[in-house]
């Protein structure tokens, strides 16, 4: 009962996680670290479909992990930075802002689509509940 709402719920959870991760990546886009340590690592969301039941109907999507990008980042010459090493280099995260913004739009639209289906499904279940009402 009400499976369609649960299914869309898994989609909303997955895309909200993606939005959270993108927000965190963008918030840290200018982090500076010394060359002796790792740079901030951008995270990605890994998902897979939830296996279908015996009737062949799938049950949505589930997050399977948050892999991080390389810790090497980009070496940048900035001798005035207090974290710079003897040669004047610091590490900055290797985050592609345009890619992050593209992902942000995809995650937002996908979240909206799932929220939309929750509404449609609610209408359907409501009308099913109302069968025989008023007779």
């Amino acid at each position, binding site marked *: 009962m009400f499976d369609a709402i649960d299914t869309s719920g898994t989609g909303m959870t997955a895309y909200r996680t993606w939005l959270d991760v993108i927000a965190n990546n963008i918030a840290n886009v200018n982090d500076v670290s010394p060359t002796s340590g790792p740079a901030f690592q951008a995270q990605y969301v890994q998902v*897979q479909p939830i296996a279908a039941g015996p009737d062949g109907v799938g049950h949505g999507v589930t997050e399977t992990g948050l892999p991080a990008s390389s810790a090497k980042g980009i070496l940048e010459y900035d001798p005035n930075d207090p974290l710079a090493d003897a040669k004047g280099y610091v590490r900055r995260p290797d985050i592609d802002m345009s890619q992050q913004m593209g992902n942000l739009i995809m995650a937002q639209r996908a979240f909206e689509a799932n929220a*939309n289906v929750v509404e449609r499904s609610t209408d*359907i279940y409501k009308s099913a509940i109302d069968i025989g009402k008023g007779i």
Partner: protein
Amino acid sequence: MLDDIASLSLQAAISGLSTRQQVTANNIANVETPGFTADTVSFESSLAEAVGAGDPTSAAISVTPTGDQPGVNGNNVNLDSEVVTATKTGLQEQLLTGALTSTYGLISTVLKG
């Protein structure tokens, strides 16, 4: 009395639409999942045959892959058509539940006299 052909056909159709809504929800939940293959639900032709044979309960609901061309990440969900399906299924379901209520209303009229 409550299991006449009309009621049973409506019930079978509502059940098919409910499955279609679940499948649509699953397709949209996986709209960005790499390698995901979208499914589609068909029950109308099977139901038409079953009604023709006089037994709507024998109608089968089949869930099959859409066969659409996948994109670069192997995902073939078409968001536009899925949202249209979700909306259409919702309206069809309201129509059918209304018809079922009317059918039961007739019986109710008879019972109340």
